[in-house]
């Protein structure tokens, strides 16, 4: 297709095989199908039971339902009614987060909760900012290339068609993308706010190229989804239906094709037949202290994300798996990762009012790849962000201000703009999820997350902080405030070519249980410097395609080990 036609058709072409955008109601934000969806009995052996209705579980369900599979999703959180449940307010959005207790430890404990964990139908994409970059091809071969991290058992070409499909479904808006595997986006870039424009000016003066997007936010209309209204509350759940989350992109179509979402149901363990070692289904409770129920299924997929997926596996103890399901080689919960997400803010003489427009605006992947001159392996991306008042207060506090000084900086809010990084922090076996001694109201052991940075991670974070601070100074910022923080979760049940070093194979099928799959970000062996949502969806899309064709159940050792031959095609 030539540039002319591509321009004409930009924003006009929708995805095939997903009618979610037409199924939504223009007058209501409720998920259509909640009252009319299929209902399955616990003892009815469905084709697939999925734990978690987030980015991974929802895409997997939608795809397989289109292939006629009978699917049940067990979701711990509520079925949202966004018109009533979601608010245009920071503090009032507390119910969107996974706020059940978890223990954090290690030398660099990671704050969970609102920072990275969602609960409810739609998962944490309900409150993610909206950035949807792809991973780079190099992310899948960091061990071969740089001697750090791990190689994936699949290559970029395995993911690329699914990236394209998911980008069309969200749909992603942004400028043509020059980094990684160069590509275009189905929707045009959004307008740039004054705050982001100031940051772009600084970047350009530093010789850093920035591009608008990529964000999963409708620019234009998309079926019955309206244009973004630029109110700036992406992290509080989009009441407009402009920002993509499975709630609007995949679950409407899934429910229309026979998927049942069983909300407010806490999965407690995967039940294993002790004779054959196959999964029988998932045991869950509808309320704390309530009776345990078993949803039987031919296949089980876990998509609870990097804390809850390992937690569920570790809690599924049986005679065959005395230290947790799939954990006889002590790999479950290991290599859990976060990204360094330092943010630094600059002050200008005029009011920028950064709360207007979506927090995700423009980004750069110029520092994404390894540059030996920088003195550390791998890299980081740069993205504009824009905290609302409570987020801004945490930012000011992190720079060491409280009391009168904090109030002074807070009053100056409208003069500031904020830019952040995402550092690729490397996987380490001791950064892991385990079970704590304490139990939750369901009687389930709670998760403990240990996290400690490595030397490469620290060098990366220090370098990137200097780069974004330089951007602010180049744009003539009058004052600078910095917060060091972390974002996102990934890993914890990684895929690999060898059962001794991973939990699932190249098809995301558990090495230890023949009919168990993991369908979320916990399978990623490395994380790049890209926000993980799009990749989690693309992986689920690929998994669904392979489950539907039967390729994912292939017992051939070569198929399980994955593709290693096409290394050359893995690079660009």
């Amino acid at each position, binding site marked *: 297709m030539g540039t002319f036609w591509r321009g004409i058709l930009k924003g006009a072409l929708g995805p095939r095989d997903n009618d979610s955008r037409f199924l939504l109601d223009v007058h209501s934000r409720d998920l259509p199908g909640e009252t009319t969806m299929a209902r399955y009995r616990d003892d009815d052996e469905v084709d697939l039971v999925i734990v978690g209705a987030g980015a991974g579980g929802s895409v997997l369900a939608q795809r397989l339902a289109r292939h006629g599979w009978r699917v049940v999703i067990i979701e711990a959180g509520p079925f949202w009614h966004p*018109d*009533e449940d979601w*608010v*245009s*307010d*920071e*503090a*009032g959005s507390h119910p969107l987060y996974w*706020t*059940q*207790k*978890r*223990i*954090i*430890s290690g030398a660099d*404990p990671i704050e*969970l*909760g*609102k920072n990275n*964990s969602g609960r409810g139908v739609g998962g944490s994409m309900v409150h993610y900012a909206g950035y949807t970059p792809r991973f780079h091809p190099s992310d899948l071969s960091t061990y071969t290339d740089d001697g750090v991290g791990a190689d994936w058992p699949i290559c970029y070409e395995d993911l690329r068609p699914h990236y394209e499909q998911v980008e069309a479904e969200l749909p992603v808006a942004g400028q043509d993308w020059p980094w990684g595997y160069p590509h275009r986006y189905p929707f045009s870039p959004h307008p740039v*706010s*004054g705050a982001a*424009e100031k940051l772009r000016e600084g970047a350009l003066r530093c010789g850093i190229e920035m591009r608008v997007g990529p964000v999963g936010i409708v620019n234009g209309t998309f079926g019955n989804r309206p244009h973004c*209204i*630029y*109110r*700036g*509350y992406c992290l509080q759940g989009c*009441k*407009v239906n402009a920002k993509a989350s499975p709630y609007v992109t995949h679950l409407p179509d899934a429910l229309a094709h026979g998927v049942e979402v069983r909300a407010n149901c806490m999965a407690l363990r995967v039940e294993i037949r002790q004779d054959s070692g196959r999964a029988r289904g998932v045991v869950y409770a509808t309320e704390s202290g309530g009776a345990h129920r078993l949803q039987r299924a031919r296949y089980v997929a876990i998509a609870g994300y990097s804390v809850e997926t390992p937690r569920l596996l570790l809690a599924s103890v049986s005679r065959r798996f005395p230290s947790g399901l799939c954990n006889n080689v002590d790999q479950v919960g290991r290599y859990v990762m976060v990204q360094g997400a330092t943010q630094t803010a600059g*002050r*200008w003489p*005029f*009011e*920028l*009012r950064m*709360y*207007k*427009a979506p927090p995700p605006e423009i980004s750069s992947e110029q520092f994404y790849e390894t540059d030996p001159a920088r003195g550390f392996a791998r890299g980081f991306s740069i993205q504009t962000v824009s905290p*609302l*008042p*409570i987020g801004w*207060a945490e930012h000011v*506090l992190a720079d060491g201000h*409280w*009391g*009168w*000084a*904090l*109030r*002074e900086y*807070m*009053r*100056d*809010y*409208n*003069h500031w703009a904020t830019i952040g990084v995402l550092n690729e922090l490397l996987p380490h076996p001791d950064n892991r999820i385990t079970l704590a001694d304490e139990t939750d109201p369901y009687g389930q052991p709670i998760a403990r997350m240990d996290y400690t940075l490595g030397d490469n991670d620290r060098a990366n974070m220090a370098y990137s902080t200097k780069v974004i601070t330089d951007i602010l100074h180049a744009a003539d910022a*009058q*004052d600078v*405030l910095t917060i060091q923080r972390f974002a996102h979760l990934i890993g914890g049940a990684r895929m690999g070519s060898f059962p001794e070093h991973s939990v699932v194979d190249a098809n995301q099928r558990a090495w230890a249980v023949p009919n168990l799959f993991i369908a979320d970000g916990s399978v990623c062996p490395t994380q790049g410097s890209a926000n993980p949502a799009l990749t989690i969806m693309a992986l689920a899309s690929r998994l669904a395609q392979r489950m539907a064709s039967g390729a994912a159940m292939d017992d051939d050792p070569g198929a399980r080990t994955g593709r290693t031959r096409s290394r050359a095609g893995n690079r660009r």
Partner: protein
Amino acid sequence: MPDLTSADHLPKRRPGGAALHPSWLPRQRRGTTPQMIGRYPDFNVLDAVDTWDEATKKVVLARLEPPGPLRFFTSDEEPVLRALCDTVLAQDREPRVPVAEMVDGKLADGLLDGYQYADMPDDRDTWRLVLRGLDHTATLGYQTGFAGCAEAQREAIVSEFAQGRLVGGAWDELNVAHAWSVVIRMMLAAFYSHPWAWNEIGFGGPAYPRGFMRLGGPGADGPAVREPFEQPGATDEDPVQVVDAWER
């Protein structure tokens, strides 16, 4: 009178990093701000309440209800809690955002943040220990409870707390740096969720379903373009003497 374009009113740009006395700020003319100071004297976020959706209106306006009695903290703990909230948020006079009651409500309802440091007790126990610790430190240093200390004394104690340097008594049951993070996070979230604080900082507040049209991007309007309902920032138009060196 600080010039807002110069940024010389910001603590890091000032000698010693100390904040200016707020006497340079205009008195609020419209609506309410904490202590009736702020940078947007003619802005009241509540003027836009008819543009908010019902769900948001309900949640935000509930914060303006008169605060009820404490449910979580005891009457012994109450003065220390109030003194801590006032010092950390520099609320030295009425009208105050009722931070103590907001924190108390969250703890009473068990609305916690979803994580607990391994070397720390439950957040609810942390709060009680912190209040005990503050009294311990105040008694050692100033022979009176934390609530009885002068403002400068409380600030000195909180400064040590913020740097994780308090020891003895209840502090030995806590990782003090983590305890600071737990309590201040909750106080800040309470204060800056209150519409009065939004008035003070000129934040537009809830924006659904109205949204924004003028984002201030490149083009003729420039970065400083405003929506018709946004008020520009101002310094004091009825100047009083600015207390530059803050002597107490």
